[in-house]
Every structure is written in C-alpha cells, then in structure tokens.
C-alpha cells in the first residue's frame, strides 16, 4: 500500500467563508498504480494533489490523515514535510512550463535543488543524463537557460528533475493539457516508463483528458464538487461506470481525444454547486437525472465490487437495508 488517504478535508480560507475544495475524501493508491483523477474544472483535483504536497497559506487541513508507505505524513507541519518532499513524494505542477527559474541554468537549478536534500550533484549527474536521454533530451540542455527551451522541453526537464530522487509517490498535474496529441501520447508513455523502471512507485495523474487516462492509468478516480464520486479500474470507469455523473461524463465523449471539459457541460444540465456553501446530501442531486428522496442524505463511498467504489444511493449496499421502505423501489426503478 503506497498511499492511503482517510477522510481528508482541505478548505480555502476566504473572506466569504471556507471553500470546501476537498471534503472528506478517502482512497488508496497501491504500489505500481497509476491513478488518474478526473472531474470538471474546479472540482478540487489540484487542491487534492497540492494539498498532499504542500498546503499554501490559503489552504487549511481541516481533518483526515494521509499515510505514505505506512507512515503518516505530517501534512500540517511545513518543516516536517520539507524533509519528505522531493525524496518521498514529488510533484510535476500544473504550471510545469514556468516552474524553472528563468535566470539560472538547468544544471544550476538541479544542483541547488539536490543540495537542499544533501545529495551531491556529481553523484547524480550520470543518472540525470541517462534520464534526460530517456525523455529525448540532449545533455546540452544542462548548460542552457529555461528561456532557451521550448515549453515541452521544459516540461520534460521538470518531470526528470522532480523524479530524480526516486520518490515513492509522484503527483502529475495537467501534464498533457498544453501539448499536441502526439506529444501527449509520448508524455503518457514516459509516465509508464518511469513507473516500470521504478523511478516512481505510484503516480496520481490529474487531467482533463480522459483519453490520456485511458492510455496510461491503472485506475481512475472521479471527483465531483470536492467529493469522490467513483473509483475503479480504468477499464471499468470507461466501459461500465456506475455513478450517474461518471456515466454522463463518459457518454459525452464520443471519440477519444476530446476533452470532457469542452463537451460535458452540454451533456450534463446545470453547473456544479458552489463549494463555499455546497448542498446537503449528494452534491450531484440537482443535476442528476435519477435523483430521488434519499439523495438529500449524503451517500457513502462504498466498495460495490472488489476495487470499485461508488458514492451513489442507487448503488449503495446500505440503501435497501437501512431505509428500505422509502428508497429501494425508486432506486431499483432508476437503475431499470
């Protein structure tokens, strides 16, 4: 078990109150697992990834625990986390193309970064060169400045630097969104290659692009409005999803390569709720075509089949037993 997240809540403090961007989220990522995280813009994907990595001044951990390789991460303690960052867990940020200091050479940036982890650059240089070669970069980039490199090159460099110390967990946020289709495929293959070679044990891939998840991920986690909707193997999510939101998300994708962001809003009526004051019960209920009375209570994130988790009363094992009289018939009808 590489990563175990239990009841994690990360809120943004704002003038108007707390934005509940990640609200009571639990899941696990196994060794060797590449878990995709999908969901509409603003549903909390980046907050989840960044929150595990580093809470910035506006984020607050309200509850929950995160365990990496059996050890609890001191999420709220920036200093203690610093010792683990980069070595145990690492990130390719959403802004990878501008993540390199424009006035320092690649080799200086890398040397400075390694030094903060008490690793000698000279000890890593061979490996660094090998990995640059693996992602198709000539070693002369070491002497270059970020401004001399294309966006895609910078992104690959960030990818190699981020994983140079073989972290257990890699969080990759929107690493394909700014690339053309063939480069996207190549980056996807690199992620798999990195995992296969053991550079990283497990990966969380955050993206808008379901086709890239279909290509590279073992499992897919679907988020909706700060909560988890469904988690299952990539195959199941794409071919046999159970949550009404996932179904609409997938069916609104007629061909591979289309990003659901462009399409989904026409497929699903309405807009996601405000996370400042989210509705009670299932957060999807005012857009869900199957919504029924029970949906005013919050559905649990239940394991309905081995490795398949769904948060929907239609699928919940407890729906029949707990509140049989009212809910069950409608639920069956809805499932039809």
């Amino acid at each position: 078990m590489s990563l175990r997240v239990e009841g994690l809540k990360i809120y943004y403090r704002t003038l108007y109150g707390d934005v509940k961007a990640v609200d009571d989220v639990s899941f696990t990522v196994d060794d060797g697992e590449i878990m995709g995280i999908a969901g509409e813009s603003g549903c909390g994907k980046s907050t989840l990834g960044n929150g595990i990595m580093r809470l910035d001044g506006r984020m607050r951990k309200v509850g929950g625990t995160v365990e990496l390789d059996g050890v609890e991460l001191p999420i709220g303690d920036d200093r203690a986390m610093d010792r683990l960052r980069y070595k145990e867990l690492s990130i390719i940020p959403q802004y990878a193309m501008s993540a390199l200091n424009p006035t320092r050479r690649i080799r200086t940036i890398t040397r400075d970064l390694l030094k903060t982890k008490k690793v000698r650059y000279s000890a890593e240089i061979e490996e660094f060169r090998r990995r640059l070669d693996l992602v198709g970069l000539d070693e002369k980039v070491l002497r270059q400045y970020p401004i001399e490199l294309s966006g895609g090159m910078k992104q690959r460099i960030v990818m190699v630097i981020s994983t140079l110390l073989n972290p257990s967990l890699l969080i990759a946020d929107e690493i394909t969104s700014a690339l053309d289709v063939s480069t996207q495929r190549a980056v996807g293959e690199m992620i798999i290659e990195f995992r296969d070679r053991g550079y990283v044990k497990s990966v969380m891939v955050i993206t808008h692009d379901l086709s890239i998840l279909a290509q590279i991920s073992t499992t897919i986690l679907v988020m909706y409005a700060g909560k988890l909707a469904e988690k299952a193997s990539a195959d199941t999510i794409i071919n046999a999803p159970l949550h009404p939101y996932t179904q609409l998300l997938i069916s609104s994708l007629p061909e591979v390569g289309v990003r659901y962001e462009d399409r989904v809003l026409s497929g699903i009526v309405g807009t996601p709720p405000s996370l400042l004051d989210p509705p009670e019960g299932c957060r999807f209920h005012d857009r869900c075509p199957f919504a029924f009375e029970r949906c005013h209570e919050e559905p649990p994130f239940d394991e309905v089949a081995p490795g398949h988790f769904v948060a929907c009363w239609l699928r919940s094992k407890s729906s029949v037993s707990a509140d049989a009289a009212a809910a069950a018939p409608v639920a069956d009808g809805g499932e039809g």
Partner: protein
Amino acid sequence: MRRYFLKKISIYLLTFWVAVTIDWGIPRLMPGNPLQVFLLKFRAQPDAAKYLQAYFYKAFGFNEPLWKQYLYYWDGIFHWNLGVSMFYYPTPVATVIGQHIFYTMGLLVPAIICAYFVGNRLGAMAARRKVLDNSILPASYLISGTPYQWFAMLLAFFLGALWHLLPESNAFAFGTTPVWTWTFIGNFLEHWILPFLSLFFIMLGGWAIGMRNLIIYELESDYAHWLQMLGSPARLVRRYAYRNAVLPQLTGLALALGTFVAGQIVTEIVFNYQGVGLLFFNAITNSDIFLMQGAFLLVIIGVLVANFVIDIVYVLVDPRTRVSMMGAEG
C-alpha cells in the same frame, strides 16, 4: 553579438547627435536674447561691454552662417572647448565645471551607492517578515513622500543651525582654500555629512519600496512555488528571488549614477554646497548660456554612458537579454 552592439552603438550615436543639436539650438531659440540681458550688466563700462559683445558674437559665430556655427560647435565639443562662462568670466566653462564636479561626485556617488545597497537590503527584509514590512514600508513611504528640500532643511536647521553639531552650509569652511592637507580633508568631511545624510535618506525609501515589491512578485512566481513544493528551504527561494529582483534595480542604479552630473540642485542649494547643481542653478538664473550648454552636454553624456553600461551589464547578468539578442541575430 557583434551586430547587436553595432546596432546599439549606432542608436547611441544618433541619440547623441540629436541631443547635441538641440543643445546647440536652445540659446538660439531662447526668447529675449540672453546675451543682451547679460551685456546690460556692463552698461557702466561701455568699452568692456563692446569687447564682450564682440567676443561672444565671435565665440557664438553669430556673424557666420548657421551651418558654420553648427560645425564650430561640434569642433568645440571634440576639443572639450565649451566656451567661456559669462558668470565666472573669464574662466572657460570646462574649467568651471571641472572645479565643481568633484564636490558633486564626492557627495552623490557615495549617497547613491549606499542608499542602493541599504535600500535593497531593507526592502528584501521587509518582503520576508511581516513585522518588518509593517515598519519599514510605512517609514519608506513617509521618507520618499516627504518633499526632499523639506527633509534637507530639517536636518540643516536642527543639526546645523540650532544645535551646532555640524556645519550646515558650504563644502568647506569659508576662507579656506581646497588643498590636500588633513585639516582641509577633515573640514571637508565635516561639511559633507549633512548633505550626504539628507541625500541618503531621500533615496533610501525608493530603493526599499521597489525592492520589496519586486521580491514579493518573485516569491509569488511559479518557480518559487515549485521550489517550495519540493521542500527547498526558504534560503534558496529567497536567494533566487533576490537575484532576479535585483535586475530591474540595476537599471535604476545606472540611471541615478548617469544623471548625477546634473547634481542634486535642491540639496546643493539648501546646503549651499558648491557642486554642479548649484552651478547650474546659477547658470540658469544668470542666463549664462555657455555654462548651461556645457551642463546639458554633461547630462547628455552621463545618461548615454549610463545606458550603454547598463546594456552591457544586462547582457552579462541576465540570460534573457542574451537570448533575445541571439534571436535578433537570427
């Protein structure tokens, strides 16, 4: 690289030419013939007035066609022959400026450089600690918001006139002549402190505010966030931010140094400090055309040289300039 510098140099030469031409044109375009105004002073001595008029007409070449006057002017510049000051008649303008520039340089260059370093440090400190930000920033705004003659006058009044701690007027004691003796140097330094302090404080606030804002901007940039995400200590993040933030400040420093030849007119007037600023002030109030021309020429040269230096320095310290330069080369 070569092409870049050739292009730069030709732009500077062109600017120099335009500026000098304007400098040449000013007295000829000035309303009310300043020469006549000046000669009025010699009404009582018609001989002297006549001689002077003849001299200045010749010097200006007013009897010659315009194009010849223009060529004479350029010839004069190349021989550092800027004519004769009317106010300090018969000392040549170049000599008068030479006598005063030492005092201005001795005052302004240390003040600019000290303010630059201390201001940048203070700004960087303010950017990183809330407590300091709440004290340094308002203080900086207060100082740089104060009309600077006011600040200089406060210093002169309290430390000089009222408490007699330091002399508040002149560059050295009245009646002494500038010589290289310890007594004179001590005397000079004593007179130097007040104008230096007032200049230093006036400039300090601006540097501190600029640096603070630049650093805060850098600390919010993506590269800083990524370093923090990877657990880099604040030290490294701050070092990167400081080095990037200092680049725009360098331009400001070069410009401040480039315009120092114009002196700090107000400060020099308040402390009656015989630098170039005071000299120019006298030149203007006395319609001393040649001196004014010489002064403007000095400012032109100062600004152009400063800009040229900063162009070169930027190529050395900022890779972004180097890259765009290569781009221009194709």
